[in-house]
């Protein structure tokens, strides 16, 4: 997108500003769809381009001028590309790291949210403000001290720095989200459960978790993406390439080792496979996703 083009959608969308649910059309329907089509193209064309590169031969990628469609289709790129970086192993690494981070992050945030929203204890307000406040602390402040800490306890070049923090309330945003959801549940429900003799653990597991499904599903999706997409942390903490997750492996793919030009067609084919899990999850859980983020937008306002 050039500045001119971005200017164009910006002004066009602004000119048709009023977000009323009726139809105060300043532009005609046609120009409306031109804008819509343009937005879709900007988002989709790069991905289509990636697929065509992934299907080209290694040399056809460097044709000048570039062809938009492959001259001949090289499906084998989808085998040879992944082989070049030991894809199955890195994929498994990513899966293990991500699964554990999701479990830990969602579990501890839900527990903390439950306590902050539904139990009375001294320091309740203070801890809420500390957690919310820590959202503002930039991650970079922890980079060096935590690196040293992990190194001194022998966690350098292991997955522990990527997993353990999730089990210690690693994402304050999740704690905040969980608390907001728990606040919206009527108190009569757990009063009733208490009269039936249920303890807090029982109430949390069998009453609250089913009721807060949209909340923890949203968190699980966000946690999955955060961990699957994370690049800086594995880059800093993992030295051995056999332990890398896919993010670091993919980045190493195209760094010009010893002046070698990267194999872009192999790379793009592999990139597609790397993108697939978050893509599938996004499309499968879209409904929860928009719902959950919607709640985020409106709760922040209060």
């Amino acid at each position, binding site marked *: 997108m050039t500045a001119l083009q971005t200017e164009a*959608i*910006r002004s066009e*969308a*602004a000119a*048709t*500003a009023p*977000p*009323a649910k*009726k139809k105060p059309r*300043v532009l005609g329907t046609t120009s409306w*769809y031109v804008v*819509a089509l343009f*937005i*879709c193209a900007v988002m989709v064309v*790069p991905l289509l*381009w990636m697929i065509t590169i992934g299907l080209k031969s290694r040399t056809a990628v460097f044709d000048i001028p570039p062809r938009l469609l492959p001259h001949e289709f090289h499906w084998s790129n989808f085998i040879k590309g992944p082989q070049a970086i030991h894809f199955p192993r890195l994929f498994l690494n990513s899966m293990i790291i991500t699964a554990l981070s999701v479990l830990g992050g969602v579990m501890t*945030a839900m*527990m*903390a949210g*439950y*306590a*902050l929203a539904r*139990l*009375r*204890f001294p320091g309740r307000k203070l801890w809420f403000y*500390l*957690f919310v406040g820590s959202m503002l602390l*930039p991650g*970079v*402040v922890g980079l*060096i*001290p935590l*690196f*040293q*800490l992990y190194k001194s306890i022998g966690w350098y070049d292991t997955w522990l720095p990527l997993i353990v*923090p999730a*089990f*210690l*309330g*690693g994402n304050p945003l999740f*704690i905040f989200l969980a608390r907001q959801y728990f606040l919206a549940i009527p108190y009569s429900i757990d009063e009733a459960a208490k009269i039936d003799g249920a303890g807090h653990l029982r109430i949390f597991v069998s009453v609250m978790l089913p009721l807060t499904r949209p909340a923890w599903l949203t968190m699980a999706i966000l946690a999955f*993406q955060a961990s*699957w997409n994370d690049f*800086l942390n594995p880059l800093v903490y993992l030295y051995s390439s056999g332990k890398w997750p896919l993010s670091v492996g*993919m*980045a190493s793919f*195209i760094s010009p080792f010893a002046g070698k030009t990267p194999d*872009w067609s192999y790379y793009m084919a592999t990139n597609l496979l*790397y*993108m697939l899990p*978050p*893509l599938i*999850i996004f499309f499968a859980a879209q409904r929860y996703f928009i719902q959950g*983020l*919607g709640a*985020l*937008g*409106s709760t*922040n*306002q209060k």
Partner: protein
Amino acid sequence: MSRNAGSDVKAAYLFIAPAMIGFFVFVGYPLVRSFYLALTKYNGLTDPVFVGLGNFRRLFTTDPAFWPALRATGYLVVLYVPLSLILGLALAMFCNQRFAGVRVVRTLAYLPVVLPAIATITLWKFMLDPQVGLLNTVLDRVGLPQSLWLQSPKMAMPSVVLVMLWGVGGTMIIFLAALQSVPTELYEAARVDGAGPWAVFFRITLPMISPIVLLQVILQTTAALQTFNQPKILTGGGPGFSTNVLMLSIYNNGFPSLGRIPQLGYASAQVWVLFMIIIAVIALTAKFSSLWTYSDSTSD
């Protein structure tokens, strides 16, 4: 509730214990430790040597890379934050209309956000290639001038920002939620009064979503100040120092490649400069927020 007060307290601390421990380990400890390290010379192997404000003196007076890093970071923020907010809001308003296919547009606009940063950044790196990239090919076909993009010192940072803006769907989705929480009666009343689209935007829409705009200014600015992935992958900080933002400088000092000695104390000093800038941005935005945000009386 009061009958069970005792068991409540015990249960509460059990439930909250992991997050409490996490707070001390991941917030409290790094804050104190990184401040101490900023005042030392430290290579990660031998003990830190206290040098007072020496690191800061070196940063501001003798380091030839520090001011360019500050300038690059500032340039990135100034370019990215307003564009991301305006584009995100425009996109949200477009997607807040009713027309057939609006959900498709909404989904596709959000799509880049869910894709792994590394996957999309490397894709753009290839698209921005001056010879074989898609962008110049398209510009050429429609008769517009081409560019060297990442390879030109002048265009490198705008190119980095362009790649970041592809993820504007993240800003959009928050604005969309905010727009949907504006009561429709207000728009109906405005229409009865005969207000035009611009008046409606500036008198109703913008004031009603101003708390979210404020939040977005803070979040986007603090995130932009910590940009790392894009310059690291797209340019490695070059050409020259044109995209060598503060985060990249911190990374290269703290975790250098090819057997160079890490300067963890020096990198920590840079972390604290960045941290102070972030705090200043938050404080200033919050201070001036009362001038332009609208708060309704029901929220306290």
